[in-house]
């Protein structure tokens, strides 16, 4: 309902200014006026070594890097080192790094520190002459324009400066070095610890990577750039710089110098000729994400004021500076946003209430005030970091600036120091008073629903959650049930028990009562409880097999349309009556492989999409719970969830005895987790880039406004970015996610996450800063969307193709120079990409064909994967496999020894020892695999007398022995660490077919299975394709 820009047109950021606009977004007032700064920024501290090519000058940033790092590394001492006046490199790192972080551009800290560094003339063509060492003071004759301009302008101001980017390799380091200067920590470390191997993610390796492709001729300048990394004589490459990965995959025959250069990527040697029988790959050497998801550190370290990566992750934190560069990045370029991600205890998003001033936003692009805006004009103006417009500071928000340009009230302004804040929304952000949380339940009571026991579990669960529903005392609740007719329940608080009203006219649906179908929970509590207690018995003798789902949905919509809220649908039969009736179009083997295949996976009836659009408009989110053992057309039903920001939970062949616990847990979580109501979300980004496509469960209200009737912590949204201008002129791109929502307590809030990412000119740098989790997340959403318009095989091929293309591009970048002929190389940051790609192709929505997954399961898994946050998705794609028996037998007394959960095994059958007991955990279920030769003691301890029985009929429960308690503790711990879904536990014995097959074996993604590749084959196949010439 609310619009994020109340009454004001929103200006796209890109209209902002010409590429070379003189006004740089991050103009930092105090500095801008002073020559030295700029100068220093341009020159950096980098003592110009004689050989240094001038083009680097513009990228001042390269300077600081060299300066700071150089000290630590032994290197041919360039003249600067002799110069006593050079500040010790360590000091380049401003001790006061903290405060400076306010300024978006990394170079700043250093500039502040070392205004004395010499200033080479900006934009001047290559000056081989070393800048006079004496000139540590700013050169007065520096042209004022570039001086006044903050860092980016260095790129933008003189057009010719850009040239080096594309022309000369030597300029590449520039952007990277930027980053460097931004983590003082790193620099410091470097200076102290000589030759310490930098962490993989650190810019250093990247730096060198950037150099690598350089033609030999230009090598001299490079070396000088690099300062200490690689001393001019390549032979002397310090071993310490070798990447861990290099060592892990031995076999690189590259000479030392090359090792030094290629440290930022991993390589695998593939010994044999492609195509020969012997794979020639050591399966053990292949990279595996056994530590699970690792959040990109670089992202937050480079810009400490960025929001936490659990809220926003970019597929690469290096934004390409040109369209041509972007087109060489064959992976998705975009972001995954989880606006309400659960924070660990004690970490809360600060709430800010601008009572008197109204929320401070940019006049033009409507960006919210954030840590990256800069204040100028003695604090009277602020510059928007996204569109660089100069805004007035409202009188009540005014604060003086201190000597460094910071506001003196900074420590009381979380919105200026934290990447994530919440603003209390004033009335302009409301179309109506904040709505109360509304829960409406639409429950199938046809015979199959009764028999499955679903109704009972649902009624009990809802009843047990009544106290925990958010929003007391305003929470509203209502119920309707349906079979061939629709039953409404009058829950008026004055009644002692609910009155049922039956509407059987399905063609002309009407609501029998204007009020009291949706009631205030606190007032009608006893009536609601009476209803839930009697619901299971009310229909226990129902023999109706029909399902008037469509009309019931319409009726529920009519009841809810006043307020909006959450509609929970419990569906057990294929809709058979009234509008929206669905055919048993079924899962037809013959359709697979034809052009019509995808039709199975999209909604059959337009009714569902139209209905979803209506529901969204009235702020209603639909969660579909489906239970049937037969085909229920999840593809159609799921549409309701897809466009309303809801979710699909599918329990195929539901039986309360088996699945009851899972349903209980997941429904309870759905009802009690913190939910944001009637929300809209928008992500803004700096000029020159634009988000063009969005992927997940929502409805787009305008080109970039996502309508989300309900959002919670388990939902993430992905979006892709494109460059609008051929060349980006800024050094940093800012992103801002704003979610306007009503909290359950009735407050309207705006949650704002802000992040900055550097613009890079080098493909290698993009790879280096890639975030495999985000890449895979966007990837899987794209692939699942593709299954809706083409064959499964096409979708899988497109995944493979993109991986191949990107690796090929990467190879072109490095392989030739390093004579890596037979080896497959991939960026360190993306070393798991091939495996995740394989896992994606073998995930439920994409795997195999007709026989490999039932259609409904395929569709529901697809809907689920479209909403999963990164961490959960990766766990689902590459589940954990843990050996338990050894742990049980160990007589360790430590009760909470959960280290075992971290000892994950590669997902291959060869790791399953028939004497062992294994736990497989994909975030949605546990499979416990009993080896054939497992000691009977263990089995008996865990299963009691049933240990020899068929395991499908055995349920696990805690028994009176240490082993069983240990197991239960482990399961409990795993469930607690991942509460969004309940892990249902399946037990399976080795060789017990077909259960072993579909429970475990088909999920061991590294094994060859049916027509699908194993990991080794997959790598070989990709390698072969990578090596093929286009």
């Amino acid at each position, binding site marked *: 309902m609310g619009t994020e820009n109340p009454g004001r047109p929103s200006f796209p950021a890109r209209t902002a200014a010409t590429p070379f606009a003189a006004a740089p977004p991050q103009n930092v007032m105090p500095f801008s006026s002073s020559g030295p700064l700029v100068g220093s920024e341009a020159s950096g501290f980098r003592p110009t070594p004689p050989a240094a090519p001038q083009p680097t000058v513009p990228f001042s940033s390269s300077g600081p890097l060299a300066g700071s790092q150089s000290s630590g590394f032994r290197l041919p001492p360039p003249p600067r080192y002799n110069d006593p006046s050079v500040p010790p490199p360590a000091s380049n790192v401003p001790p006061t790094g903290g405060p400076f972080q306010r300024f978006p551009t990394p170079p700043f800290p250093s500039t502040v520190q070392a205004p004395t560094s010499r200033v080479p003339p900006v934009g001047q063509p290559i000056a081989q002459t070393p800048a006079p060492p004496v000139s540590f003071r700013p050169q007065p004759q520096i042209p004022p324009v570039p001086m006044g301009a903050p860092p980016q302008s260095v790129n933008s101001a003189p057009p010719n400066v850009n040239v080096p980017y594309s022309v000369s390799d030597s300029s590449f380091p520039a952007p990277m070095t930027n980053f460097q200067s931004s983590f003082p920590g790193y620099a410091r470390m470097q200076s102290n610890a000589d030759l310490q191997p930098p962490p993989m993610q650190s810019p250093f390796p990247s730096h060198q990577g950037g150099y690598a492709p350089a033609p030999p001729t230009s090598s001299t300048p490079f070396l000088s750039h690099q300062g200490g990394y690689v001393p001019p004589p390549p032979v002397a490459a310090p071993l310490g710089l070798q990447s861990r990965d290099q060592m892990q995959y031995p076999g690189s025959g590259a000479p030392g110098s090359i090792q030094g250069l290629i440290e930022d990527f991993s390589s695998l040697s593939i010994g044999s000729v492609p195509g020969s029988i012997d794979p020639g790959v050591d399966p053990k050497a292949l990279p595996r994400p056994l530590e699970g998801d690792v959040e990109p550190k670089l992202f937050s370290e480079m810009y400490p004021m960025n929001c936490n990566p659990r809220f926003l992750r970019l597929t690469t934190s290096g934004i390409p500076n040109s369209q041509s560069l972007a087109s060489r990045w064959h992976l998705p370029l975009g972001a995954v946003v989880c606006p309400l991600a659960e924070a660990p205890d004690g970490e809360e998003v600060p709430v800010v209430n601008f009572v008197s001033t109204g929320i401070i936003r940019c006049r033009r692009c409507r960006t919210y005030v954030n840590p990256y805006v800069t204040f100028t004009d003695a604090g009277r103006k602020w510059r928007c970091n996204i569109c660089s417009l100069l805004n007035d500071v409202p009188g009540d928000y005014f604060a003086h600036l201190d000597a460094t340009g910071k506001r003196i009230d900074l420590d009381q302004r979380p919105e200026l120091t934290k990447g994530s804040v919440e603003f209390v929304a004033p009335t302009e952000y*409301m179309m109506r008073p904040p709505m109360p949380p509304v829960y409406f339940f639409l429950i199938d009571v046809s015979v199959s629903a009764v028999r499955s026991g679903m109704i009972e579990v649902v009624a009990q669960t809802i009843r047990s959650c009544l106290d925990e529903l958010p929003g007391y005392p*305003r929470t509203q609740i209502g119920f309707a049930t349906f079979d061939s007719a629709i039953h409404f329940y009058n829950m008026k608080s004055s009644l002692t028990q609910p009155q049922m009203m039956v509407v059987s006219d399905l063609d002309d649906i009407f609501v029998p009562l204007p009020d009291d179908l949706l009631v205030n929970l606190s007032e009608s509590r006893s009536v609601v409880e009476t209803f839930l207690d009697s619901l299971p018995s009310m229909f226990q003798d129902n023999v109706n097999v029909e399902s008037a789902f469509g009309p019931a949905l319409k009726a529920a919509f009519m009841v809810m349309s006043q307020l909006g809220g959450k509609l929970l649908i419990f569906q057990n039969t294929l809709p058979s009556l009234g509008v929206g009736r669905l055919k048993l179009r079924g899962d037809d083997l013959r359709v697979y492989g034809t052009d019509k295949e995808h039709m199975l996976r999209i909604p059959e009836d337009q009714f569902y999409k139209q209905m979803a659009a209506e529901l969204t408009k009235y702020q209603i989110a639909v969660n579909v719970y489906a239970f049937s053992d037969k085909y229920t057309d999840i593809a159609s039903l799921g549409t309701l969830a897809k466009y309303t920001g809801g979710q699909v939970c599918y329990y195929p062949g539901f039986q309360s005895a088996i699945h009851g616990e899972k349903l209980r847990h997941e429904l309870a979580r759905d009802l009690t987790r913190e939910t944001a109501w009637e929300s809209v979300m928008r992500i803004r980004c700096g000029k020159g880039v634009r988000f063009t496509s969005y992927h997940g469960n929502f409805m787009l209200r305008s080109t970039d406004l996502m309508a989300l009737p309900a959002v919670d912590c388990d939902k993430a949204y992905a979006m892709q970015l494109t460059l609008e201008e051929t060349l980006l002129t800024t050094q940093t791109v800012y992103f801002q996610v704003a979610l306007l929502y009503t909290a359950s307590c009735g407050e309207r809030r705006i949650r704002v996450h802000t992040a900055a990412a550097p613009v890079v000119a080098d493909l290698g740098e993009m790879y280096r800063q890639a975030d495999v989790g985000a890449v895979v997340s966007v990837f899987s959403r794209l692939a699942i969307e593709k299954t809706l318009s083409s064959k499964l095989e096409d979708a899988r091929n497109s995944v493979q193709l993109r991986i191949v293309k990107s690796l090929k591009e990467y190879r072109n970048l490095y392989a030739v120079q390093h004579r890596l002929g037979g080896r497959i190389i991939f960026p360190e940051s993306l070393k798991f990409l091939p495996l995740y790609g394989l896992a994606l192709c073998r995930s439920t929505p994409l795997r195999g064909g007709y026989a490999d997954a039932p259609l409904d399961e395929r569709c529901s898994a697809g809907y689920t994967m479209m909403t999963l946050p990164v961490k959960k998705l990766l766990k689902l794609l590459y589940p954990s496999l843990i050996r338990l028996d050894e742990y049980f037998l160990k007589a360790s007394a430590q009760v909470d020894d959960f280290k075992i959960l971290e000892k994950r095994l590669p997902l291959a059958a060869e790791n399953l020892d028939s004497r062992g007991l294994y736990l497989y955990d994909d975030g949605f279920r546990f499979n416990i695999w009993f080896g054939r030769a497992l000691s009977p003691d263990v089995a008996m301890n865990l299963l009691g007398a049933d240990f020899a029985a068929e395991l499908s009929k055995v349920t696990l429960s805690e028994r009176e022995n240490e082993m069983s308690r240990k197991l239960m503790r482990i399961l409990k711990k795993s469930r607690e660490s991942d509460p969004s879904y309940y892990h249902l536990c399946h037990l399976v014995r080795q060789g017990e077919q077909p259960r072993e097959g579909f429970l475990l074996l088909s999920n061991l993604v590294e094994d060859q299975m049916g027509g699908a590749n194993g990991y080794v084959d997959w790598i070989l196949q990709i390698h072969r394709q990578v090596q093929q010439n286009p």
Partner: protein
Amino acid sequence: MVKLTLIARVTDGLPLAEGLDDSRDLKDAEFYKQQVKALFKNLSRGQNEASRMSIETGPYIFHYIIEGRVCYLTMCDRAYPKKLAFQYLEDLKNEFERVNGAQIETAARPYAFIKFDTFIQKTKKLYQDTRTQRNIAKLNDELYEVHQIMTRNVQEVLGVGEKLDQVSEMSSRLTSESRIYADKARDLNRQCW
């Protein structure tokens, strides 16, 4: 029959609470809400208004009372007895002051007392039907006198500020024009000499 109910702080027009599904069956709910907002704004500008007033608008009529710097406003059909409407507002006022009285001045965000909407809802239902015994009794109750409450038209009320603005604008224009006239006249005078 009560259509809308709004409670706002007079000093700054900040909405404090509002009836929940008021706009049901009401076609132009948005339009009337806008009018109400304009009205609140007028009140917050400190134009001295009576503490009880009825304002006609289209087929409906606003009734409001101002008490303790809080304005309680409801919109009813014209046919709805004025007496009942004011009784309804009195009920709201008593309860609102009892529950939230202490925090009214410090409320910093809109709809800070949105929880009050459940009470509004309940009370509204009591007043829904004018023919219930309870309401008839209230109507007959002579204690509560509503005759002297003034009834005005919404255009009139909302137009007041506008007209005042116009007058002050005209007078300031007059001042500046006459100054120009004086200057010119002096110039002319000088030239003549």
